[in-house]
């Protein structure tokens, strides 16, 4: 959208992108196993074609769409975003995709749509990590509707100009660059417009550690480690972690008046 353009220009980074091999071989995607190398090892089992996405809840045009239907109206854009994992490491990733808002608006959410809830595929044959109940499957995440409609919120379908590999969340994954990486749900099969704040898989697993908002915040420690610094993959020394992962100028106003220590 036109209003988003200057904002996006300011959000652009000139930091060096993390090498493709690191982005695609160091992943947290528990559907393929809890080790960092497991997703790259097992993602070939994932069949991304045919693929469909169910859209339901508080919207005028719900339905079940094929991947082609989802993608058709949206020309590819590149967005180079920082990604900060809650574990304390970070990358810079050149994504390919389109704004989440452009997708959501097609379904005409109603005034009851206060939140958007996302679900990942459940199929232990394709996702062997799901044979164990390490998290609540389907992996579920959510955003407040204004967060979801924010011009930085993005649906990625590729990276480095190539199709998105399975281990990075093919064929459709969310990217919310000012939040910890676990919010950026992968391999999406369902999008629901809901009135109540949705439960999330990590929130259910450890509510004191993984809040709904999960905005990158150097001043709010994870209970078991500090969030003040991060190791950028490929770098030796640690960097200071920035508020909202360096996107405060773009997104801080979404949270004005909120206690970010309580709403962590």
């Amino acid at each position: 959208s036109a209003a988003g353009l200057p904002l996006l220009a300011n959000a652009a980074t000139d930091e060096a992108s993390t090498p493709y091999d690191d982005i695609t071989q160091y992943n947290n995607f528990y559907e393929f196993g809890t080790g960092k190398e497991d997703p790259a090892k097992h993602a070939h089992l994932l069949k991304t074609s045919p693929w469909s996405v169910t859209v339901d809840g508080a919207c005028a045009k719900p339905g079940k769409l094929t991947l082609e239907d989802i993608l058709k109206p949206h020309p590819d854009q590149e967005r180079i975003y920082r990604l900060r994992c809650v574990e304390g490491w970070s990358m810079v990733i050149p994504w390919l995709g389109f704004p989440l808002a452009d997708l959501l608006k097609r379904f005409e959410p109603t005034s009851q749509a206060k939140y958007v809830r996302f679900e990942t595929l459940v199929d232990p044959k394709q996702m062997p990590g799901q044979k164990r109940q390490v998290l609540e499957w389907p992996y579920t995440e959510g955003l407040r509707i204004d967060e979801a409609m924010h011009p930085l919120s993005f649906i990625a379908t590729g990276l480095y100009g190539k199709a998105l590999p399975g281990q990075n969340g093919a064929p459709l994954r969310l990217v919310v660059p000012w939040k910890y990486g676990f919010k950026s749900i992968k391999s999406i099969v369902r999008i629901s417009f809901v009135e109540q704040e949705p439960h999330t898989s990590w929130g259910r697993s450890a509510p004191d550690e993984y809040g709904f908002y999960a905005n990158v915040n150097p001043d709010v420690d994870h209970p078991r480690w500090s969030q003040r610094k991060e190791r950028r993959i490929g770098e030796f020394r640690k960097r200071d972690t920035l508020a909202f992962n360096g996107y405060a100028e773009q997104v801080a106003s979404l949270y004005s008046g909120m206690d970010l220590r309580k709403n962590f």
Partner: protein
Amino acid sequence: MQLPEPYFSRGFKPAVFVLALLPLALLGWGVWHDTLGANPIETITRSLGEWGLRFLLLTLLLSTLRRQIGWGQGLRLRRMLGLFAFFYGTLHLLSYLWLDQFFDWPEIGYDILERPFITVGMLAFVLMVPLAATSFKAAIRRLGRDWQRLHRLIYPLSLLGVLHFWWLADSKARTDMPLVYTVLLLALLGERLWQWRQQRQRQQR
């Protein structure tokens, strides 16, 4: 079961020594050839910590082997393996102080006070220091019965080491390895408890 003496002390023991250095050599090789993955520092720190734990368990295993299968010669490896546990524990601590914190002492102090997994890990390390410091013959002779009592610290410090691993696990979902070490450690400690009870019953009779 027992190796003839010359084979044990001139062959077997040095071979174990070299084997015990292998994990460190492999890490060095991995750094040199860049095969430690996208986050080599994390790989190094974790690997050193796990080897520390493994050597603690091996140290504890030796007397169990003597009692359960009658292999007593292994006890002569115990000091060496215990010192390797201390060696890898020290390198693990150094990698945290240097590669993780870059000797930022206020931050390290905060970590020790505020983060239970660091507190517990640091405590485990501190408890290893007197054991390593009294591992030579003169100390054993001088301390007499107190030496044995002192070296029972290996039980609580091993438990702390395993707890450190549980609380570190970067998500609550990733607990396979902490569980493995817990089961092994509890088996080793349980065997001692059982032995101790047997002995007491025999004394009472």
